[in-house]
């Protein structure tokens, strides 16, 4: 990869000093417009659900990590870690440490990464990683403005940039350079809605057609409203344990094979090439190296489809499609359930919904559900390895995990 100095030696150096980590419990709340629920309600529901799923008890929990992008903007509440520990019953008697993690839309993935490192290092044994966002307490203009804070406010926002606008410029150049079409972008949304129909927690459980996408209102040319992920309330949680004791708590522990993270410039215009998220490329390289796996070994992946073009770039950047061929691969059905590499079986951000702080955790919950064989009608048969790919902003942060059924 010219122009990228990937520290591919880094994960192997790190892996020796860590112990193996397993996921022993998972839970998503319903995703959608949850008018009747507060942030604390949904995080507690997800957290308690994950703990019940794992058979640990509150007094076993050593630490909490919570992904939350913008409680301050969405619900006028900061200090989210302490709030959630309190309402989960872990504060007044047990005094469990709680840490909120923020990396815009990658907050959840990064919370999971911090939680895994805490267990891997030996500092903690049982750790809960949660993610949540309550986005519908403010109007959609206010929500869009809060989300725009993930870009460079001074040098993108003050010029009139919006998130759909930034991804529209990625899409325009991808189309110009590689011949990607609006129909191919629409196919991403069509597939993810089809998958969302099979996921009980999804915000949208209705099928759409390519024409529905192309006839929906234009937000930022060439992206229509149906090319964009929605505004969503939701929470997800999972429980981690050292691999050597995981079977004490779960009959089907799922093992962490790789954790990887990379940064790139905050502003899209400062990137080497706007049609490639170098942070995704580098994080994927680190993850494959750490897991000693290649893209062909991965059975399914949850990618960060905040916009349809983002899924096309992601499957290219993660090595599931040749650069420029993401649209064609999608159009050919290779990313559908039953295809060569099922992408976003949960419905993705597009149809399952995108409560920004929760998304990275939800992706891991979906992969665990699939690897356990519990995914019902959307099950990917015989899945051994799954990947999650969570992006902050227009690509300034990428967080990738590889999970496995076998230790």
């Amino acid at each position, binding site marked *: 990869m010219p122009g990228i100095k990937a520290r591919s030696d880094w994960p192997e150096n790190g892996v020796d000093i860590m112990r193996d980590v397993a996921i022993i419990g998972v839970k998503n709340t319903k995703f959608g417009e949850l008018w009747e629920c507060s942030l604390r309600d949904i995080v507690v529901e997800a957290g308690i659900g994950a703990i019940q799923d794992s058979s640990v008890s509150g007094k076993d929990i050593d630490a909490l990590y919570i992904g939350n992008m913008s409680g301050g903007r969405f619900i006028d509440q900061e200090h989210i870690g302490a709030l959630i520990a309190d309402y989960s019953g872990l504060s007044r008697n047990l005094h469990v440490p709680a840490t909120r993690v923020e990396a815009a839309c990658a907050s959840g993935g990064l919370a999971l990464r911090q939680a895994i490192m805490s267990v891997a290092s030996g500092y903690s044994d049982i750790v809960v990683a949660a993610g949540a966002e309550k986005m519908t307490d403010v109007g959609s203009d206010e929500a869009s403005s809060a989300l725009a804070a993930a870009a460079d406010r001074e040098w993108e926002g003050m010029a009139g940039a919006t998130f759909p606008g930034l991804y529209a*410029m990625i899409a325009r150049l991808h189309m110009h350079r590689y011949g990607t079409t609006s129909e191919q972008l629409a196919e991403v949304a069509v597939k993810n809605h089809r998958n969302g129909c099979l996921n009980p927690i999804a915000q949208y459980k209705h099928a759409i057609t390519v024409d529905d996408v192309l006839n929906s209102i234009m937000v*930022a040319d060439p992206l229509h409203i149906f090319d964009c992920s929605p505004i969503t309330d939701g929470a997800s949680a999972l429980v981690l344990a050292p691999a050597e004791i995981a079977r004490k708590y779960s009959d089907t522990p799922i093992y962490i094979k790789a954790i990887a993270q990379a940064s790139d410039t905050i502003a899209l*215009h400062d990137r080497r090439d706007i049609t490639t998220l170098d942070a995704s490329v580098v994080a994927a390289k680190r993850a494959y190296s750490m897991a000693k796996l290649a893209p062909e070994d991965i059975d399914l992946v949850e990618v960060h489809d905040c916009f349809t073009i983002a899924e096309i770039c992601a499957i290219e950047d993660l090595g599931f499609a040749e650069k420029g061929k993401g649209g064609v691969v999608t159009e050919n059905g290779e990313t559908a359930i039953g295809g060569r590499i099922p992408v976003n079986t949960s419905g993705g951000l597009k149809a399952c919904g995108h409560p920004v702080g929760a998304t990275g955790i939800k992706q891991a919950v979906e992969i665990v559900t699939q690897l356990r064989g519990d995914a019902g009608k959307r099950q990917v048969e015989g899945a051994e390895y799954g990947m999650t790919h969570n992006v902050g902003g227009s690509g300034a942060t990428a967080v990738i995990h590889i999970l496995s059924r076998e230790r």
Partner: protein
Amino acid sequence: MSSVPRFWRNIGVRYNLEGTRCKECEEYFYPPRNVCVNCRRMGELEPYKFKGTGEIVSYTLIHTAAKGFEDQAPYTLAIIKLDEGPCLTSQVIGDIDKIQIGTRVKSVFRKLGEDGERGMIYYGTKFVPLDP
């Protein structure tokens, strides 16, 4: 528009396309950086005023405006590669049918947006196509 001091602090940069250039590796930066991304501590940055010409890397017509830009919608937003090297995000004014990826543009001084609550109007740099 969210912050008055934050905008005015950079007024020279916004009005006159003032950035920096690293004497060590000769890379140009806009907006100005105090640390060179190549040389880091070993770099030496000096002020530089950009010529204001460049070309369009990519662009979009924004229909759903950013907060403070509602009265301008739809507006054309672009990533522009300045001739000296760095890219920036800016509006391009004039007929969108006249621009494409690769279109040559030059900077002009225009109203950027406004802050309704404070009644402030912001000026700065936008771009227009250079005539062929």
